[in-house]
């Protein structure tokens, strides 16, 4: 048997999207809780904590999207029209928060405007991503090789729920990050917010998880049919473990465990989505093998990806290692 290129690529794209969610999730989250912390110095501190890493984090989104077009062009051609509105809103939100990082330092009088651009852009981007996710989970109707649904299909009670869930979840990641990376007032405020964001996130994960199998019989079978259930049962169990670690960490005023446990929740939710979707790339319409580009396209790009992705990962990990420790108000980092 030859190498299963579509399967490898599905794994790589899933990895890029997961890397995006766990990396950009917390810096979007810092933007979401930004308005709830007053005081210029405190806000500087929050922004400085993500300033060195946010744009590297966001590039994983380009990698996921660009990769999707390159290796699963059919899926790209179906998903983009189906999720057109939320994707446009997400891009506009990301543009506003991105420039806020640069422009906020250029002005004093106009600073409040860029504060709003940062917070509003982050929240809009997170909400739009959640809506897109919900719309994807609901399934996308396809006729022939094209999207066959309507212009408003992405807007449903379920997608609004996932939109809110992602905003709350990212806010939890952001609060966890600030607990880890800051001290004194900002850390205290972040912990106070996390104490209600954490139960809210867990509740929303619960509601979405219970709702999802009822959206589609295929999801139900993948989760609960024998012997699949042996493989899927650990996922909710591990979610429970992560929830306990998270709440204990918050109550016992730990520094790192709330952030790491929240990230674990996101990874587990992502695995859960993978269980629901596989082997479809456009849920319940198109499988990864149907959507894959010809082997010659997949192999050509895989050569470059297998060299460059490890390098990118290495320097990303290194930059986080270098900027370990607490951020201070002046913008420098100290150990």
């Amino acid at each position, binding site marked *: 048997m030859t190498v299963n290129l579509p399967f490898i690529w599905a794994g790589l794209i899933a990895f890029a999207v997961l890397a995006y969610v766990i990396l950009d999730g917390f810096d979007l989250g810092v933007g979401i809780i930004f308005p709830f912390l007053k005081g210029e110095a405190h806000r500087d501190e929050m922004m400085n904590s993500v300033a060195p890493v946010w*744009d590297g984090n966001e590039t994983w989104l380009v990698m996921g999207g660009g990769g999707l077009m390159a290796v699963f*062009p059919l899926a790209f051609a179906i998903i983009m029209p189906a999720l057109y509105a939320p994707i446009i809103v997400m891009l506009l939100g990301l543009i506003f928060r991105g420039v806020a990082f640069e422009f906020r330092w250029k002005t004093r009088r106009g600073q409040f405007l860029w504060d709003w651009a940062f917070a509003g852009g982050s929240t809009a981007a997170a909400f739009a991503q959640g809506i897109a996710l919900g719309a994807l989970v609901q399934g996308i109707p396809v006729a022939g090789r094209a999207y066959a649904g309507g212009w408003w299909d992405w807007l449903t009670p379920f997608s609004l729920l996932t939109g809110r869930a992602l905003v709350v979840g990212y806010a939890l990641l952001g609060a966890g990050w600030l607990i880890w990376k800051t001290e004194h007032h900002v850390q205290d405020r972040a912990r106070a917010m996390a104490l209600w964001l954490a139960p809210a996130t867990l509740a929303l994960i619960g509601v979405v998880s219970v709702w999802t199998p009822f959206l589609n019989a295929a999801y139900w079978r993948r989760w609960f049919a024998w012997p699949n259930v042996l493989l899927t049962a650990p996922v909710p169990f591990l979610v429970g473990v992560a929830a306990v670690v998270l709440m204990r960490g918050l109550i016992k005023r730990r520094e790192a465990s709330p952030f790491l446990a929240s990230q674990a929740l996101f990874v587990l939710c992502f695995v859960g989505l993978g269980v629901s979707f596989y082997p479809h790339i456009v849920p319940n319409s198109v499988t990864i093998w149907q959507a894959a580009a010809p082997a010659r396209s997949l192999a050509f790009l895989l050569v470059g990806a297998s060299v460059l992705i490890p390098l990118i990962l290495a320097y990303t990990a290194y*930059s986080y290692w270098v900027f370990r420790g607490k951020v201070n108000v002046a913008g420098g980092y100290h150990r």
Partner: protein
Amino acid sequence: MFSDKVGPVIGPLMGYEVLSAFFLEAGFLGVMLFGRERVGEKLHFLATLIVAIGTLFSAFWILSANSWMQTPAGYGVNAAGQFTPVDWWAVIFNPSFPYRLTHMVLAAYLTTAFVVGAVGAWHLLRDRKNPAARVMFSMAMWMTVLVTPLQIAAGDAHGLNTLEHQPAKVMAMEGHYQSHPHGAPLILFGVPNSVGRRIDFAVEVPKLSSLILKHDLNAPLAGLDTIPLDRQPPVAIVFWSFRIMVGLGVAMLGLGLCSLWARLRRRLYDAPWLHRAAVAMGPAGFAAVPAGWLTTEAGRQPYTVYGLLTTARSVSPIAATAVGASLIAFIVVYFTLFGAGAFYILRLMNTPPRPHEPELSPDEPIRAGGLLPAMAMDAAGALSPTDGGARP
């Protein structure tokens, strides 16, 4: 529809663009922005070179993808109607790619040269002794003198290549509605009349177009009358944008020659008229580049993949109102943010250049955006213990 059909060929090219831009540009832009004082002159210069090389890689892949759509090669078509790669070498180095890459890269350098030249000239107008302003202006004018003729030659070669592969585009650029069996005139100026299918008020030089395109005064040149109406590009857009680009190119050459004349007379820093002209020409590249792209993109209509896939058949199933709404949203957002950005940049440019100026204002955060190890260690270690010793 377009991405489904074309994705297998141009998707991987764009994938490489993402990977190389991601790696080289994002990885080393931080070092470049971090500034010399933290990493030392040599490492800073190296990082700047790597950013430049990364950007060229980016240009390489993205222009390869665009050129493939203009002059497709090395492809097959599968049962699902998708274009598939057969020979990657032929796909990447398709017939128009070397010309487009050269023309665009030179255009990017020229655009920068005119911006730098304008900023230098602006400060020379206030203080003709400012040494940094002199360096800026002098280097930019050398660049103009050397690169503008190269660019004109590259543009000419690109045009001949277009004549070979996309003759209808050249017909629209030239405004040749009619065929000219005994040598075609070069229309310098005129108003395209799409109803009458002629150029009104034309100012033309007899036979010059045949000389430029065929190197023969009497060579016959076919016109749009040989192309079916539904296979013709919109003449007015192509005709006008081409003239804007060429006109700006001629003005650039003129400014370069004037600067050379002033330099030979040792009056380069002592010629306010030249400095004013350079300030006026500052945005020339920003106008010429979109005009050139408008020429080539409107000129390839009605196709997305030339001769193979029409624009009408590339359309995705998205309601026109949705596309219109998102377009308006992007226009509003871009004007707002570019407006703010242009304001901050112009304010920055207005500050006279000084030697040893700080790279970052003290209240600005450290930006890494991907790191080089030595620089990162320096930033993490050297910065705070000595109470901001590295900070100016």
